[in-house]
């Protein structure tokens, strides 16, 4: 992502060809080895519960929660105020960096590391929960029915955000960020008022995205006891229960990130030509829709082939949902591969902006004068992180899909059914690496 005039002024170097070749070859190899050596019975679900975390860790996490909750709310309000009333300059206004870097890149990575902390920290939920309590309603409950109870509203919200970030011609304008945040918060709070704060768990696209990534985390809270538990990273995927619209959420995210990479290639530069403003927005919108479409069609075709090979007579959509969890590691991988350097470099600018959120010349934390140190990590390190993320995401996806297959089908059928799924994952992985190669 290059937001004009400031945020993300630097983009990553193309991946060295040798590194591309090694990682693509490794991904192919591991895919076929996986078929031979992986377990014949599902194992992830049993491991997903893990064991109790040390009491001290639980205690620290629990006592940090209100701090994080208030901090997130304050930061959200500061971002809104800055977007609406702050300086009209991307680099000097807190809002664009807060939204596109700290929130959009930072929170997903934290969710994959720490678990679903956003469930409680989400400022929209905080506000809606207070309103629910005032109205003597259970903030965890949702009375939504029909399509409102599915993940489709979440997918729509994320699609709007991705369109703004990747297709609209002035994504970095503080005013535009302000309009988006205000409108998004407004719609979410109206939904929460209508159905209860609990609706945000399925209706708020960001919350849904973060909770899906949290399935990868080594930390989770037990639903009944509320105690913190430790588990192997990734095993939580077995507990993800995709519903209607979950597949749309994941495919929109995957397609969006793929388009972000694609829009940085010379191919797209040529397609865009000299178009600017709304002309560029229209072409980029087409590209974004196309990218999501390609990713989605590949996945649906693979799911259909799996069903045919396994003699599964469920409808395509219904049985496609079952494979959605195996895409989650790939979503995280794409996000890390494309945005790691943005987080490292522009994150420094976020720290500086926090000291002077409204451009008033404040220096709250003594960081206002900080400038971005572009030597903080080397291009080689960035390249290794990118490749490691993509390959790890691939391995995670293959394992999750395999585990789901042996859960659904007898071992021999399961292995046979996995060829199409492996194919689509190789396509995503090699495609992702190709985008990095041509960055």
């Amino acid at each position, binding site marked *: 992502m*290059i937001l*004009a*005039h400031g945020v993300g*002024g*630097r*983009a*990553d*170097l*193309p991946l060295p060809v040798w590194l591309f070749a090694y990682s693509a070859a490794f991904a192919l190899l591991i895919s076929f080895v996986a078929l031979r050596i992986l377990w014949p019975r599902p194992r992830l679900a049993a491991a997903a519960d893990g064991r109790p975390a040390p009491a001290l860790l639980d205690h620290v996490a629990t006592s940090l929660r209100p701090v994080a909750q208030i901090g997130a709310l304050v930061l959200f309000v500061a971002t809104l105020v800055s977007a609406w009333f702050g300086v009209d300059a991307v*680099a000097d206004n807190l809002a664009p960096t807060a939204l596109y870097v700290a929130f959009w890149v930072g929170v997903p990575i934290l969710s994959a590391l720490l678990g679903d902390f956003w469930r409680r920290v989400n400022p929209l939920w905080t506000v809606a929960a207070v309103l629910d309590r005032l109205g003597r309603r259970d903030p965890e409950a949702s009375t939504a029915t029909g399509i409102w109870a599915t993940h489709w509203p979440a997918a729509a919200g994320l699609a709007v955000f991705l369109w703004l970030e990747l297709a609209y011609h002035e994504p970095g304008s503080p005013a535009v960020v302000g309009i988006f945040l205000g409108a998004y918060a407004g719609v979410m709070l109206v939904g929460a008022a209508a159905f209860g704060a609990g609706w945000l768990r399925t209706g708020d696209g960001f919350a849904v995205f973060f909770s899906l990534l949290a399935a990868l985390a080594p930390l989770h809270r037990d639903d009944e006891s509320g105690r913190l538990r430790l588990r192997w990273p990734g095993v939580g995927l077995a507990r993800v229960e995709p519903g209607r619209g979950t597949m749309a959420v994941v495919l929109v995210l995957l397609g969006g990130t793929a388009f972000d990479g694609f829009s940085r290639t*010379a191919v797209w*530069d040529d397609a865009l030509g*000299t178009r*600017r*403003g709304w002309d560029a927005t229209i072409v980029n919108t087409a590209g974004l829709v196309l990218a999501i479409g390609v990713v989605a069609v590949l996945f649906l075709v693979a799911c259909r082939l799996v069903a045919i090979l396994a003699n599964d007579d469920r409808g395509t959509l219904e049985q496609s949902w079952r494979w959605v969890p195996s895409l989650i590691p790939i979503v995280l991988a794409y996000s890390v591969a494309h945005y790691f*350097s943005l987080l490292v470099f522009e994150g420094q600018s976020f720290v500086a902006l926090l000291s002077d959120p409204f451009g008033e010349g404040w220096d709250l934390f003594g960081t206002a004068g900080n400038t971005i140190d*572009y*030597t903080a990590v*080397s*291009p080689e390190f960035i390249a290794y992180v990118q490749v490691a993320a993509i390959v790890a995401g691939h391995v995670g996806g293959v394992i999750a899909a395999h585990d789901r297959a042996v859960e659904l089908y007898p071992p021999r059928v399961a292995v046979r059914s996995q060829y199409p799924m492996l194919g689509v994952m190789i396509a995503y992985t090699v495609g992702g690496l190709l985008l990095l190669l041509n*960055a």
Partner: protein
Amino acid sequence: MRHRHVWRALVGVFAATTLVAACGDDTETATDTTTTTADTTADSTANDGGHDHGGRSFEAVDPVPTVEVEATEDAKAGWNIHVMTTDFTFTPEKVNDAETTSGEGHAHLYVDGTKINRLYGSWYHLGGELEPGEHEVRVELNANDHRPYVADGTPIAATTTITVEGDSTTETPVDEEAGQVIEITVSGGEVTGGGRHEVALGERVTLRVTSDIDDHVHLHGYDVFQDVAAGEAAELTFEADIPGVFEVELEDSVIQLVELEVS
């Protein structure tokens, strides 16, 4: 007469030689009314070279005036020249008078040997564009009829040196110091010479941008700007010391000029 012939020949062939010869005995020729021809020739030479000519100098009498000069850079533009004299009065009202009383007159200002202006007072603002580097500022006291003041054969003058910023070492030998030059032309929104350019890390790079509209060139990441005027080439030189891919853009019209791949 023979003496005069020789002199004339010398003047005719080598003006420079004439000059040196004329300067050699200023006090004597100043009173020598017989060497009319030589005097005229020498005078014209003196004017050409901006050199004080002995035959047309003015000998100061006690108290001998003195002059000092000081140059300070003006906050806005140019330099302020302060001429500090003793036993000397600026008499612009008498300029071009044949008569001069010792201790009155005006001054001449030279920069790098070239006469810039007459001075009628102790302050002068030296404006205009000076090339980056060192320049010699010389102030000379003159009689009303412009003859330079001398005392015991030495011109009464003062010299100071000013240094114009702009780093003559980086700008003067342009080709060597510009490093890798990337030429970009923008016309009617179309960019010529655009696309991706590879640059070695640590190398010096100059972007030479010609545009048909007034705008600013912005190198993202490095965050350096350069104004560009319509129809005039603007140059932006920088050390490529941050690795990565960077966009160069015409800021106001949001036109991407090039991408620099620094590695």
